[in-house]
């Protein structure tokens, strides 16, 4: 009798114990992750944040570093960076979208679709020094395409064009912006249900009306969200511009790089403030992306 009673008690007990243990262990299991992020994300960011509100020499709290962001050279860097990112996000976004629509809905041979997808994976990761070099070989004064176009009477360099300029950077950045757009937007285009088109056609809609009234409104949040990702992708890019312009065009990542290596106008506090400014711009765009993403999930799953 007493034996079976104890057995029953022991059977009852377990559910309570794992619950309490799970509570303490649920933290324990994540300690390595939190430790790592604190050391290599939190700490560097904290150094930048604290440094940005401290005086270079005395370390006293100050907002002077942020005030220095308005000096013409720094303001120009921010303006250039934002302009390049906006232009490449919009142009790259639109063309990437059209390209994705072309291979997915344009009745092209199926193999072109998988070829484009694989190639987009490569091209969206092909950046930095080799990309800048490739475009130098293509569009510099003696570049492959420049010479080719000279042959047919088009002289690229007759005006003010040069590949080592802001426009040049935009042309080069598009090389990884289009493909990224193709990769991001393809699942959304796949998500357009054929029933929607059939329903529209049954009610007499033309193809144009279908796109204007149904497909595009459904895709708009995804399109905008993807363009924001492209914006961030371009805003944070450093190596490509570093190689391409050799510092002739002022961009924020290049300016921060100069602060790291400590040449000219060395002002660490200003470097910190620029870094925080970059984080702020990126943070705002990611928040925008998240909001749009939530909205697009209403129709596209």
């Amino acid at each position, binding site marked *: 009798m007493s034996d079976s009673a104890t057995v029953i008690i022991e059977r009852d007990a377990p559910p309570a114990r794992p619950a309490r243990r799970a509570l303490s*262990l*649920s*933290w324990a*299991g*994540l300690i390595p*992750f939190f430790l790592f*992020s604190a*050391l*290599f*994300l939190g*700490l560097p960011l904290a*150094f*930048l944040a604290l440094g940005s509100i401290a005086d270079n020499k005395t370390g006293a709290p100050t907002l002077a570093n942020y005030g220095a962001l308005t000096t013409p050279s720094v303001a120009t860097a921010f303006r250039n960076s934002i302009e390049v990112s906006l232009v490449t996000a919009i142009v790259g976004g639109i*063309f990437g979208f059209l390209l994705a*629509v*072309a291979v997915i809905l*344009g*009745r092209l*041979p*199926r193999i072109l679709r998988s070829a*484009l997808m*694989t190639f*987009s994976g*490569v091209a*969206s*990761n092909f*950046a*930095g020094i*080799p990309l800048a*070099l*490739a475009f130098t*070989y293509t569009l510099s004064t003696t*570049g*492959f395409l420049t010479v080719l176009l000279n042959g047919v009477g088009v002289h690229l360099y007759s005006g003010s064009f040069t590949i080592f300029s802001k426009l040049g950077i935009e042309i080069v950045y598009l090389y990884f912006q*289009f493909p*990224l757009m193709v*990769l991001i937007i393809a*699942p959304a285009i796949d*998500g357009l249900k*054929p029933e929607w*088109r059939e329903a529209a056609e049954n009610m007499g809609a*033309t*193809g*144009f009306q279908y796109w204007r009234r149904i497909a595009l409104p459904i895709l708009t949040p995804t399109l905008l969200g993807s363009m924001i*990702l492209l914006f*961030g992708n371009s805003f*944070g*890019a*450093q*190596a*490509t511009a570093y*190689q391409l312009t050799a510092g002739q065009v002022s961009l924020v*990542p290049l300016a921060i*790089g100069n602060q*790291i290596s400590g040449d000219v106008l060395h002002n660490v506090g200003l470097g910190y403030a620029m*870094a925080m400014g970059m*984080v702020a711009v*990126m*943070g705002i765009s990611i928040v925008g992306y998240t909001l749009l993403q939530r909205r697009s999930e209403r129709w*596209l799953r």
Partner: protein
Amino acid sequence: MTGSSGPAIGSRAPGALESVASSTVAADRPRRNWGSPWAWIIFLIGVLYFTVPLIATFAVSMRAKPLFAAYTNSFADPRFLSSLLYSFVIGLITVVLSIALIVPTAYWVRLRAPRLRPFVEFVTLLPFVIPPVVLVFGLIRAYSRPPLPFTNTDLGSSALLVFAYIVLSLPYMYRSVDSGLRAIDIRTLTEAAQSMGAGWFTILVRIILPNLRVALLSGAFLSLAIVIGEFTMAVYLARPAFGPYLQLLGANRAYEPAAVSLISFGVTWLAMIAIAMIGRGSRTRIQVGGAH
């Protein structure tokens, strides 16, 4: 939102793009076999834009005399192989450590700490918000002084580079592992393993890891492709990596940089083909995008 598509995408909305252009003939569906001319035009523009720079680079690399000298010279340069090897080893260490960090974390979040998920996800997305140049700036500032003087030694700097690359790979790795975990019933697998006496380490290494093969391999190849060509962090940490080597080469030589650029493109291409092969027939979404 799976990367691999369902069946019959090509056939389900015939003439979509064409009818944008010519809405007057929307009713009939001709030329099914040839595809819309608009689609072809856009596709060909894309192909031209993608290939011309590669052709130009190839043309420059072939200007060296004798033929292929740009390639043979590059391979003969000991710093080419040593920098490529350095970046490859750094990439491998990054991949192994990042798997060791991310898999238990994502597993634990799913199994035991779902309430912490938003926070963990937020942290894994932070590298999107912090550009590489900003991160390396912060790392140098934080780890170049007495308590933790990483940057004072070669080994310390390389370790810091690996940690920076792990941070860089966090978003891809976490999302890829997390969607991999979603596809398998980890609770049942865990309970089954526990009932047979397996400990946490055994469960992770012998049950969870093999089930995440596709997600891990594609994440690994993507990380490798990014790390091998990465420039910004390597150059500011003064590491003898492939990216800085190519930059130096570009400043000093005429034809070799073209050859090495194409080789670098080839490495990325191989990594992506590997990802495509691994991902074939799997429902795991493959992450893309990199650091420029």
